[in-house]
């Protein structure tokens, strides 16, 4: 590629980048922004349920981030902000829902499965150990075996 055409490409690419949508206005205060991101990472975006509120481009997520910034500006604590979200969208918005009767199975389920798995493994190993160990021959059986061996040898 000639130098001149390379130059043209460079200009094209950079001008395209310049035309791209401007970044959303950052909050003036970096501290506020940091706290907002920390809080919104704990929250689920309900529009695209597998994204956190901090990572989502959904319009609702943008609105909620704006609300969080506003509440930080009003001097609310992190807990008050989380409570605000839970009061409106339920425990489901939190990636780490509180431990209470309705979420016991959610929190304890993996440990229950693990305990079940370990119990099954122990039972399996015990049974196999029993099957592999050869049964002891009784005196009578030993004599019969010797007699059979003698017979085939002669």
């Amino acid at each position, binding site marked *: 590629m000639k130098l001149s055409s390379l130059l043209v490409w460079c200009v094209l690419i950079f001008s395209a980048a310049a035309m791209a949508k401007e970044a959303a206005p950052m909050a003036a205060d970096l501290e506020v922004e940091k706290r907002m991101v920390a809080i919104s990472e704990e929250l689920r975006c309900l*529009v695209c349920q597998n994204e956190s509120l901090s990572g989502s481009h959904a319009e*609702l997520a943008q609105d909620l981030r704006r609300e969080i910034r506003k509440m930080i500006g009003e001097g609310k604590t992190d807990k008050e902000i989380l409570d605000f979200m839970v009061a*409106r969208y*339920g425990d489901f918005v939190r990636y780490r829902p509180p431990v209470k009767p309705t979420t016991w199975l959610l929190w304890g389920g993996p440990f229950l499965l693990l305990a079940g798995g370990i119990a099954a493994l122990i039972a399996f190993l015990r049974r196999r150990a029993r099957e592999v160990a050869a049964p002891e021959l009784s005196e009578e059986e030993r004599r019969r075996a010797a007699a059979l061996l003698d017979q085939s040898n002669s």
Partner: protein
Amino acid sequence: MKRFLIPLGVFVVLVVFLAVGLTLNPRDVPSPLKDKPAPAFTLPQLAAAGKSFSPADMKGQVWLFNVWASWCVSCRQEHPLLVAFAKEGKLPVVGLNYKDQEADAKGWLAQFGDPYVLSAVDADGRVGIDYGVYGVPETYVIDKAGMIRMKHTGPITPESLQKQILPLVAELSK
């Protein structure tokens, strides 16, 4: 033979769990607002300039609060049902025009029919946040005392209207 029965049993249980999971709607998140007072607000009305609406105006009657927008595709899906329902005149349907442009909203109602006694304009979506709106359309059943009795997320279907909303409304209207 017996040793194959246990894995088979486990497999069947898993399949049942997955099958049930597939029939559930992941959008149907239980709302914490059920049985709580409907959040208060005062918003301008879409049609009548200068007039405002707040939920307190509806005290003493059972009403439906339906969140809609002209950009919302599913709203169009449920709209004929709402229009037909409003014609029956059983109970008032109030609209919340959520994050919409005034001209678009008015055009939409003119084109598809207006089932609402009035629509409140929530241009920046702030009231929507108070009501926990995350997937328009959403519909709330609010009782005489101003308590939210039910939240329906997504378009109303004839089935959900007949089986869930109407029985509840009948119960509340007693």
